[in-house]
């Protein structure tokens, strides 16, 4: 019956994936992608793949959110700059 924890992790991944697609604002999506990364790490652990879980935690918890948020910031600054040409 160790299947129960596998089912919990699978459902969390499916839910996070749905939410990540449904939220159209990139900043909010980045937050959900961070949680998706954590859920995937849990799934990999219960599938007995700690190496893969470490990889996912290293990438998903800080690196991907940082990359997406920096891009969001650059694009927003750019459009603010283009609209009222101050700064």
């Amino acid at each position, binding site marked *: 019956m160790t299947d129960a924890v596998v089912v919990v992790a699978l459902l969390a991944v499916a839910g996070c994936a749905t939410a990540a697609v449904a939220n159209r604002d990139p900043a909010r999506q980045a937050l959900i992608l961070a949680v998706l990364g954590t859920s995937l790490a849990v799934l990999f652990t219960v599938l007995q793949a*700690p*190496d893969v*879980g*470490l*990889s996912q935690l*290293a*990438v998903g918890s*800080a*690196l991907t959110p*940082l*990359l997406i948020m*920096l*891009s969001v*910031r*650059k694009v927003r*600054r*750019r459009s603010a*700059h283009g609209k009222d040409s101050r*700064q």
Partner: protein
Amino acid sequence: MNPRTRLWLVVLGGGGLAALLVAACLRLPVFGGPWHPYGDRAVRAALARHTANTVASVNFDQRAFDTMGEMTILFGAVLGCVVLLRQARDEHRDPPAPCEVAAPVRRYALIVLPVALVTGLYVIAHGQLSPGGGFQGGVVAATALHLMYLGADYAALERIRPIEAYEIGDALSASAYLVLGFAGVLAGSAFLANTLLPYGTFNMLSSGGTVPLLNAAIGMEVACAVVVLLARFLDQAVEIEEGSGE
């Protein structure tokens, strides 16, 4: 094509794909089944070469050539980012105003930075024994350096991160992997063959032949690559402004 037609097309194609995927899922070997021919052979081969972490053995010994391909993709992606995010002629650098960070956050960052750096190096160094390895540890070590940006500001990060050094480190570690591969050829066997060094004692740091060396090269490569990548993004997001300056 208007959005409505496109949505119908997506639904049609997606529906067809979904049907095929479900049909394929029902014919796959059942989840959790006992039949893993490749896995069993990989475990036997790894134990024969005294590598405790079978996954590291697959990555850096049995499929080391494949990992070289992955490394090339990584190198190419970083090169692409560096070219795309360089400072264009119509842009200028505008050093951001120093940012005041709350004292507890600064203290936290300064305490956690060395801990995270050491953890990253530990994960790389024990790659052939316990879960971990160059890919994971490299990302952790590179992320650790960027605590400087969170704990202080961008200028402080730039002081501890001479970017040219990391670019050179990236190239050096990529070539170190190739050199280790060719060393196998010179020693009379095949490219990236794990026959150079003695296999050592099982479950010791120096076990596994060339696995720890290739692992270290990948760790350095990944760490340098991530630092260079994040540097380009931070430059764009924080420093580089449009317009050619005054």
